């Protein structure tokens, strides 16, 4: 029967997650016995701080801010990056001009983007979005480009043989063919975006997890610092869950490999 099987798989991966978390918690708790309590607070202190983040509206708002910043910027980066990547995949000429620019962007650390953001923009949210965009667009664009170039030539010729217009070629062949690559670059960039959002939030923002995290570190409140970090991990899990749902839906056509 099919339903139990799908259920069984989902159950297995859920229980794996729980087991992972338990494992990490145990390792942490054990390590606290060997480390001074100032830098390695116990699980209960961390747990309390984490709970606070979710129940106190004053704290929760920071998490919401950061989540939204990540989401909106990432969607923007996705649209821009995918468009650029598709164009690069479609034209050697464009690719030659874009690749160095994207590589250049990749080489610039967030520390430097921060200064440029301050110089060029006044609006806090714009600055944060700018920094996240600068860091995540190259990844989207380069991966999409490489995926487009990996699409089976047979399928492209098929579309050409049927005289599909350029738009149709993209919509009916290229985009569906690169969906797996797009999904995997989303998971990569999600991490990137969260990481850089935290740094970006150090300029101008008095909201957001980045600010709270730095604050907690500055006043040596390690339990809070770890709790804020975990709250980011939870945000990532949440988004990752959405990505996996979309993956299950869009990649349902993939044959299930029996073994590799």
């Amino acid at each position, binding site marked *: 029967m099919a339903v139990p099987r799908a259920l069984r798989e989902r159950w297995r991966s859920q229980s794996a997650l729980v087991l992972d978390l338990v494992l990490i918690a145990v390792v942490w708790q054990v390590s606290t016995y060997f480390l001074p309590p100032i*830098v390695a607070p116990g699980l209960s202190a961390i747990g309390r701080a984490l709970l606070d983040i979710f129940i106190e509206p004053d704290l929760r708002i920071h998490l919401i801010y950061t989540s939204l910043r990540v989401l909106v910027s990432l969607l923007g980066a996705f649209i821009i990056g995918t468009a650029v990547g598709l164009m690069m995949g479609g034209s050697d000429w464009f690719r030659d001009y874009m690749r160095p620019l994207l590589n250049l962007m990749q080489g610039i650390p967030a520390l430097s983007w921060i200064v440029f953001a*301050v110089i060029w923009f006044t609006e806090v949210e714009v600055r944060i979005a700018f920094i996240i965009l600068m860091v995540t667009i190259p990844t989207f664009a380069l991966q999409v480009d490489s995926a487009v170039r990996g699409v089976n030539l047979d399928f492209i010729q098929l579309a050409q043989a049927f005289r599909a217009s350029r738009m149709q070629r993209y919509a009916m062949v290229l985009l569906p063919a690169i969906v797996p690559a797009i999904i995997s670059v989303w998971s990569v960039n999600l991490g990137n975006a969260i990481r850089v959002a935290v740094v970006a939030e150090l*300029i101008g923002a008095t909201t957001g997890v980045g600010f709270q995290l730095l604050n907690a570190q500055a006043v040596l409140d390690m339990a809070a610092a770890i709790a804020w970090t975990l709250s980011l991990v939870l945000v990532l899990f949440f988004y990752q869950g959405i990505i996996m749902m979309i993956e299950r839906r869009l990649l349902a056509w993939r044959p299930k490999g029996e073994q590799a």
Partner: protein
Amino acid sequence: AAVPLVPLARPALAQTKLAALDIPSLAMPSLGAFPSPVIKEKGFDKANGLDVTFQPKAAGIYRSDFASGASPLGGSGSLLIDVGLVSEKGAKIIYLFNINDYWGTVAVPGASAIKTLKDLSGKKLAAALPTSNYAIFRYFAKLSGLDLSTVEVMNTSSTALVPMMVSGRVDGVQLWEPAYSILASKGDYRALDFIGLWRESNKVAAMPYQGIAAHEGWVKANPQLIPRLYAMYAQAADFIESSPDEAGSIIAKASKTDPQTMADLIRSKRLGFNMYWAGEQRAATEAMFRAALEIGFLKDMPAPDVLFDKPV
């Protein structure tokens, strides 16, 4: 005060073996890092029977390493954070002696209409919120009757403070040294003066801010090193204050800044060099702790024995 320079090699000490010592400190161009190049350049460590290796660290690392005891001695110890906060968390930290008193300001463009802290109301202020310098500034804001909730405060990483001001994104910036001197050397900016309020309201002259702190274990284990450390820093502080040009160029070289700016900064006294044993200024120290309690930076009054008394 022109203190006579100590001869570089005192015969008595030169014969005994130098005590090797690692001193973590904040990295240049931070205030706590100013004496380091001078000590090494002029040999003040060897002159006191010490062979010091300075370990510059970023603030966050410096704090964690010190708080966890990974480094038992702190060469840029902040009274409020490294002593007050860490003690609050149950570690036994001793503030040995003070080196610099507090100095902080709000810099505004020369032509700005802002003359006092109260004028900041309704304006945009850039500041590095998670620093002790800003924490103490909050106390001054309170003293001068400025309600910070009426100011649009923008948290800014310390490296972006000056770009924020220079590119005209804010009306003022909460700063310390040497950042302020560098800013002033590159444009028309002036500092709001509010340090005087301290003396008026607390009736104490000193305003302890940063110096040398250590874990209790280290203090117990190395009583003989503590006076030598004090002497070493005292000589460095004297040298810096008495020979601003030479000290300025040593510091400038170590921090890749302009020697003239550094020399001017030393002459301005804004570095606040003020050396005393922690126990010698209990009233001032307690006033500082009280201020921190008042603004909610500390939750409890640290025990009196966190302050080290002058060894006899």
